[in-house]
């Protein structure tokens, strides 16, 4: 185990957040079983007060989740020198089999937490807490995922040993190695470009259509926005990163966060994750449009979310395309 201060900070933070979630889930179970908005009994009043606590905890949790995601990647990057031939976070994460799973779980939890907060926001605007039970059921799904994150992240850090030989992102993401990272890197570039622009265009189109018509097209938009998120991440590895590094072989998705590239990675990933959460939230609210107390509230929330997602996807595409057109690096002969 490596005693780097940042690692300890992450473990402490993760432990605290997990404990808070377990605490909230305990009350969540009570709410699911005993909630009755029409009752004026003391139990009901007590449960209503408790929902404020859970909301507060979840809001803090999302913020910490975002901060700890950033800290995790940054730490993996900072400790790369401890491992033979690791040049950036990609190498550090590859040291044992828990590194990349930890990243994936953190991403998933972030998306889930964001969605929960959106549902919570809608629920609080209605005068009879219509989504309360569904909301807490979702919480009961998120909690074990957070526990899993704590365990996987902990296993990753505890299993770190100095001087271990790992791979540099150059070989991890190289086109002729094995493993999923290189499968993505090796995807043929032109089809990937087409896929990326096509999915973005479809998402933008369906989003705008949804903003005007506000009907079941929301499902289509939500699905497309998640698909675009996945395609964009693959595109980052497959060809977008090449233009930022100006090297035809450097596919790493992490190096783009470093100072040498003007920290542009943060902007890009912020846009991607932001739009993914907004798109996901729009879809999550779709089933609740019919509920009477929400019928006025949900459509306006969805419109705002869809708009946010559109702006962020647009921003991402513009920055990436700008770089592709105006950089001195020529990949396909244009």
């Amino acid at each position, binding site marked *: 185990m490596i005693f780097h201060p940042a690692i300890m900070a992450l473990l402490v933070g993760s432990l605290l957040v997990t404990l808070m979630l377990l605490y909230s889930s305990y009350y969540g179970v009570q709410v699911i079983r005993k909630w009755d908005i029409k009752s*004026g009994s003391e139990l009901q009043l007590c449960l209503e007060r408790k929902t404020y606590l859970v909301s507060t905890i979840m809001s803090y949790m999302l913020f910490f989740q975002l901060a700890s995601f950033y800290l995790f990647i940054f730490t993996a990057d900072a400790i790369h020198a401890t491992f033979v031939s690791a040049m950036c976070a990609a190498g550090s994460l590859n040291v044992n089999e828990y590194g990349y799973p930890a990243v994936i779980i953190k991403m998933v939890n972030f998306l889930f937490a964001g969605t929960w907060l959106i549902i919570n926001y809608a629920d609080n605007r209605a*005068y009879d807490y219509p989504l309360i039970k569904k909301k807490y059921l979702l919480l009961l799904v998120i909690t074990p995922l957070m526990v899993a994150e704590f365990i996987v992240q902990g296993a990753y850090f505890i299993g770190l040993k100095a001087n271990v030989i790992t791979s540099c992102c150059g070989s991890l993401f190289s086109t002729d190695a094995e493993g999923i990272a290189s499968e993505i890197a090796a995807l043929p570039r032109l089809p990937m470009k087409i896929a990326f622009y096509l999915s973005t265009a479809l998402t933008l189109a369906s989003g705008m259509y949804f903003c005007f018509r506000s009907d079941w097209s929301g499902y289509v938009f939500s699905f497309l926005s998640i698909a675009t998120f996945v395609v964009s991440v693959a595109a980052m590895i497959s060809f977008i990163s090449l233009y930022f590094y100006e090297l035809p072989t450097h596919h790493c998705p992490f190096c783009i966060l470093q100072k040498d590239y003007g920290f542009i990675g943060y902007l890009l990933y912020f846009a991607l994750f932001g739009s993914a959460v907004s798109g996901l939230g729009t879809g999550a609210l779709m089933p609740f449009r019919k509920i009477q107390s929400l019928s006025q509230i949900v459509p306006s929330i969805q419109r705002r979310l869809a708009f946010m997602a559109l702006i962020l996807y647009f921003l991402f595409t513009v920055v990436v395309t700008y770089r592709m057109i105006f950089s001195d690096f020529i990949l396909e002969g244009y």
Partner: protein
Amino acid sequence: MIELSDIRKVFNSGKPNEFVAIDGITLSVERDKVLVLKGPSGSGKTTLLSVIGCMARPTSGRITLSGKEITSLPERFLTEIRRKSFGFVFQQFNLIKGITAMENVILPAYPTGEGFSVLKKRALSLLELFDLSERAFSKVEWLSGGEAQRVSIARALVNDPSVIIADEPTAHLDTKLSKDFMEIIGKLKVRRKTIIIASHDPIVYESAAVDRVLEMRDGRILSRATRQ
């Protein structure tokens, strides 16, 4: 305007110290009139005031405000209604020490999201109404009893509510100030405010401004005396 239908409020239900504060009250509060609830302490006046004023949810029964049912509204909405429609004057004035009279007056309006300068103007005009303009920027510890009471009334009016609720407002006042208070109540009635007062002070319930007096005991309403 406000309709209560078989309201019960029970504390610590199911436990050995279970206490029924209000035991089945049905009541209708008329607009722009002054209602006084009279009775000894423990009769449930204060609890009834808090139920009417959207401060507490009844254990059972129904309440409607201007035709809209508000019994099982979540706290968020109840508080918004209370803020917009009700103003409270408390027995102990309950001003916050360490800040000025003006700041005390605008405190109930902070959550409405109106700009500070707008609120300040409104507070100053209210304080002028009560002849407190010179004391607007004094800390409340330096105010006399009568001045503090007028500040608390000004505070109750800052969100321009349609109902004023006062709980034993004259308990700490001498005769002159008590009469002054009832005079203010009369003026507010003329400005079309509905007023509900809980008091066992004769100066209050025998005042000419009062339209209706209800006597309470043990969580129930005893007599219904009306006045012209």
